Every structure is written in C-alpha cells, then in structure tokens.
C-alpha cells in the first residue's frame, strides 16, 4: 500500500499520464473538446466525491455551486468589469461561503432528509439564476466573455484541454492528499459510524461542513471553466438534472475513489456525445444508462475492477 507505489501516487501517475498521452491518439480536434468537457466534469465529481465518497453525505443539489461558478465568470466581467480569473476565485469564494452558511443546518439531516434538503437548496439556486433575468439573462442563458491573461485571449478546445487537464490533476492531488490525512480518515470514519467517530474525538459536524465547502469550491471552479470554455451558459447547468448527473458520476465510478470519479465523469460525459446521433432518444437513453449503471455497477467501476485485479493476483 505505501512506499513509492502508494495508492495516492499511483492514482496521480495514471491521471497525469492520461492527460499527457491522450492527445497523441486524438484523430481530430473535436476530441479535445470532448476530453476538456470530461476533465471539467471530473473536477466537479472529484470534489463531490470528498463529500459523498469519503464522508458519505449525499448532495442532490450540487450543480447549484457549479452554476454559481459559471455565472460568476459570466456576470463579473460583463457587468462589473472584473477580470475573468478574479471572478473564478470570487465564484469559488461565494460557493464556499454559501456552503459554509447553509452546510451546518443541512448536514444535520440524515438519509432521505439530507437528500431532499440539498435538492431543495440546489433547486433554489437554479431558480434564482433563472428568475433574475436582469443579471443572468434568464432561462435562455447568457454569453460569457473569453478568458484573457495578460491581454492574450485563451479559447479553443486545445487550450482548454490543457487548462482543464492541469486543474483536474491539481484537484485530484489535493483530494488524494486529504484522503491520506487525519481529516480524510475522519471523513471516511464518520461515513461508517458517526458515533464511533465522535467518540474518537472527531468533531463530526465540523468535518462534514468542511467536506461540503470543499466540494462546493470544486464544483464552482468546474462551473467557471465550463462557462469560459463554452462562452455561453444557461441555468440548466445549475439544475436538478445536472446535480443527478454529478452524483451518478461519483457512484458509477466508485464512491470514495478519485480515479472512479474521473471514470464516472468520462462515461457520463462521452456517452451522450456518442448518442447525439439519436437526438430524439437522448433523454430516454440517458435515463436508461443511469438506471442500468446503478443496478449492475452499483459498487462502482474502479473498486469493482480493483477487486477483480486483487482476486486474480492472489
């Protein structure tokens, strides 16, 4: 487990290799776009995994934070004349702040009550983004100014492939570091037994809260990335369906596994892209994929594969 080939380093190595090597096999520029979308979703999923996979607390409203990050880079530059990169940070700070404020009462809830609490919270954020049309452009969305650094405009799939890839690796590194620390152990412990964790001296409420805040910041930054990459954003990015997709990514890839979150994000992002040939059938197929994945791959892909490998090794 430990040493040079600790799980932490292996995961990181695999991710770096993926980001670095994938472009070599891309047959066309279109693939940069799809891969960038995967890295962006994966960042949000890796963050949500801290909350769901480590700490075992479900959030059915997490796309709300994604939306806050997305609209921060839409509104800040256009209305307040702020630089985009500052708005990424402001969005992250706002998301973290909101999570910190609502986290304590919400995370007192358990099971289905937590599910509906987070769901309601997410729906409210989406509703605000839809209704405050003066600022957000309403249900039709709004365009987003491109990212510029030192007067250089950064846009296009290739640039965003590398940016989102780097941010994902960095985010995964932080999450893996957390996993292998007192706080990470505390989160994983309270997942199994809050009472035993508390009697081990762990401030359960506080740890849940920080996991929520971290997950919110990850989602927010992913949202900012998507908005800047696409140049356009609608309230759907903050919507219930998107929240479900994020949760499904984490569960499908494997709760608690950083690599799993990336795999889950890759599947749920690329499948609809493959299925765009059947535009008509997209929703039905998405629903079917989510159902089948949850029924048959409930343990998650990465832990499932790891278990198989471990079995064949011994």
């Amino acid at each position, binding site marked *: 487990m430990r040493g040079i080939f600790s799980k932490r380093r292996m995961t990181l190595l695999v991710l770096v290799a993926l980001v670095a090597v994938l472009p070599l096999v891309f047959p066309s520029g279109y693939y940069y776009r799809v891969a960038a979308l995967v890295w962006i979703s994966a960042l949000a999923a890796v963050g949500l995994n801290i909350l*769901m996979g480590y700490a075992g607390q*479900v959030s*059915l409203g997490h796309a709300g934070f994604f939306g806050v990050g997305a609209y921060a880079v839409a509104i800040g530059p256009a209305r307040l004349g702020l630089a985009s990169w500052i708005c990424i940070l402001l969005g992250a700070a706002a998301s973290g702040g909101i999570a910190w404020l609502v986290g304590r*009462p*919400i995370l*007192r*809830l*358990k*099971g*289905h*009550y937590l*599910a*509906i*609490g987070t*769901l*309601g*919270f997410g*729906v*409210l954020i989406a*509703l*605000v983004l839809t*209704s405050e049309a003066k600022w957000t452009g309403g249900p039709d969305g709004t365009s987003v100014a491109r990212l510029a650094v030192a007067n250089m405009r950064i846009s296009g799939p290739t640039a965003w492939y590398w940016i989102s890839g780097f941010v994902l690796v960095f985010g995964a590194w932080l999450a893996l570091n957390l996993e292998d620390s007192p706080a990470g152990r505390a989160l994983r412990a309270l997942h199994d037994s809050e*009472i035993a964790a508390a009697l081990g001296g762990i401030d359960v409420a506080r740890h849940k809260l920080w996991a929520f805040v971290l997950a919110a910041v990850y989602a927010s930054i992913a949202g900012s990335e998507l908005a800047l990459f696409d140049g356009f954003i609608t309230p759907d990015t903050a919507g*219930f*369906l998107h929240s*479900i997709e994020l*949760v*499904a990514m984490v*569960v499908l890839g494997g709760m608690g596994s950083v690599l799993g979150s990336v795999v889950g994000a890759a599947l749920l992002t690329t499948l609809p892209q493959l299925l765009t040939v059947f535009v*008509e*059938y*997209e*929703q*039905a*197929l*998405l*629903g*079917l*994929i*989510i*159902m089948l994945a*949850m*029924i*048959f791959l*409930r343990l998650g892909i990465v832990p499932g594969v790891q278990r198989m490998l471990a079995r064949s090794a011994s």
Partner: protein
Amino acid sequence: MDGFATMAEFLQFAFSGLTVGAVYALVALGFTIIYNASDVVNFAQGEFVMLGGMVTVAVSAAGIPLPLAALFAVALAVGVGVALHRLAIEPAHGASPVVLIIITIGASIFIRGVAQIVFDRQFHKLPSFSGDAPFVLFGATILPQSLWVMGGAGAIVVVLHAFFERTILGKAVLAAAANRLAARLVGIDTRLIMTLSFGISAAIGAVAGILVTPITLTSYNVGTLLALKGFAGGMLGGMGNPLGAVLGGLLLGLVEAFGAGYLSSTYKDGIAFVMILVVLFVSPRGLLGRRSVERV
C-alpha cells in the same frame, strides 16, 4: 381595496391552493405508500401523473370516450409502476438508499424521454368533466374541475383508508410496512406487497394527472417538478406517514398559492423548497415524522 374584495381574493387563493395542494397530496401519498412498503423514495412518482394526463389525451384524441381513455391511462400507469418495481428496483435489491434514489431518477428521465418520443413536446389539454362555467362563492370564482380534483383526492383518501383498515390485503400491506421481517414470518408475500404498492401509487398518480389536466394542461415534462413538490409535501408531513403526506401536500399548495398571490409569483416554485428547508432546519424529521433517537 375594500373588505369584500380582500376576502374574495383570499378565498380565490385558498381555492387554487387547495386544488394544487390536492394534487401534491396525491403525489405525496404515492411516495409514502411506496416508501412504507420498500424504503424506496420513488422520484418517478411525478411521471405517473404525467402518464395519466398524456395517455388520456392521446387515447381520447383517437376517438375513445374520455372515461375509457382515462381507465386505459390508469391501467398503463399501473403497468409502468409494476415494471418499475420488477425491472429496476428488485434487481437492485440491497443497494444503498442513494443508489435506489438515483435508479428512480434514472427511471423518471427514461419515462420522460420515451413519452417525448411517443407523444410530443407540446402542451395538451383535456376538456373539463363538467363544463367550464365557473360559479362564484363570496366573490371568488371556482372552476367545476377544481371540485373534481379536490373531490377525487378526497375519494382516493377514503378508499385507501378503507382498503388499509378493512381488507386483509390492506392489513398485510400495513403489516409489511411496520415490520418486513415479521410480516414475512407470518407468511405475507412481501414481494407481492411491494409490487402492489408500486401499482397503487402509480394508479393514484395517474388519477391525479387525469383530474388536473383540464386545469393545468400537461406535457411530457410536468413530472419532475410534481415529483419534487410531492416529495416536499411528504417530507413536510414526515416521511412514511400517509396522513402527514396528505396534510403536507395541501399545506404546500396553500402556501404556494398565497405566496404567489401576495409575495412573488416569480418565486412560486421556490416557496415549496424554502418551506422544506425551514421545516427541516427546525425539525429534521418533518412535521409529523416519527421522532426517534439513533440507537447504538
């Protein structure tokens, strides 16, 4: 504004609140029945409402008389409910609550997607059952169809109550809800009970959809918001409590109508969720939820 007009306005909001609330109550009731039988929070509950409305519209458009079309729609919804249990919930036996929730959400996306292909993406209307001539009560106008909705909801509650209290099968459902293992030990087929619960819930949802379509119109995607609000209503009343579900649903409808009338109609759909958050923050198990201490 003079007193009478104020009063009329108040009544108007109350009536529309009770009408919508009756639908929420039925959705919440459907949630509760499935939840009690199987611990599954069925987010596809709203799709039964959608199916009730859409199938009735489609079948009656083909020239079938409305009552027959409605019957067909209910039967179809029941079929979908049973299939949902047998094909999606049962194979996932033993999965965590979150996984089960996502499965039902996947099912709802699937059903919606299929409806969009089979029907279309337009809004549809059914004719009112007893005409559209409103009558006036203390200055408030009431649509006859509103009475159908409220009366229908009331009838369903009464019939269900009789079913649970008076019939062997109903008692078996209650027994299974109270203690699944004990129910199995005394020979109750809990699998059948669960399937039955999904069927009953689907039927309730479909009836709600048929009753309300003449007022609110329907389309392939009305289910999501209804599911969320029905869930909110059930949660307000306290998960697993049928009476609480009905009260929670009605309360939600009323608060929404008054909120939209007196405060802001933009945020009408938000009221439900603000309300759940407030209630949950104050009482983390809902208004009438079973209060229990976690045991170790």
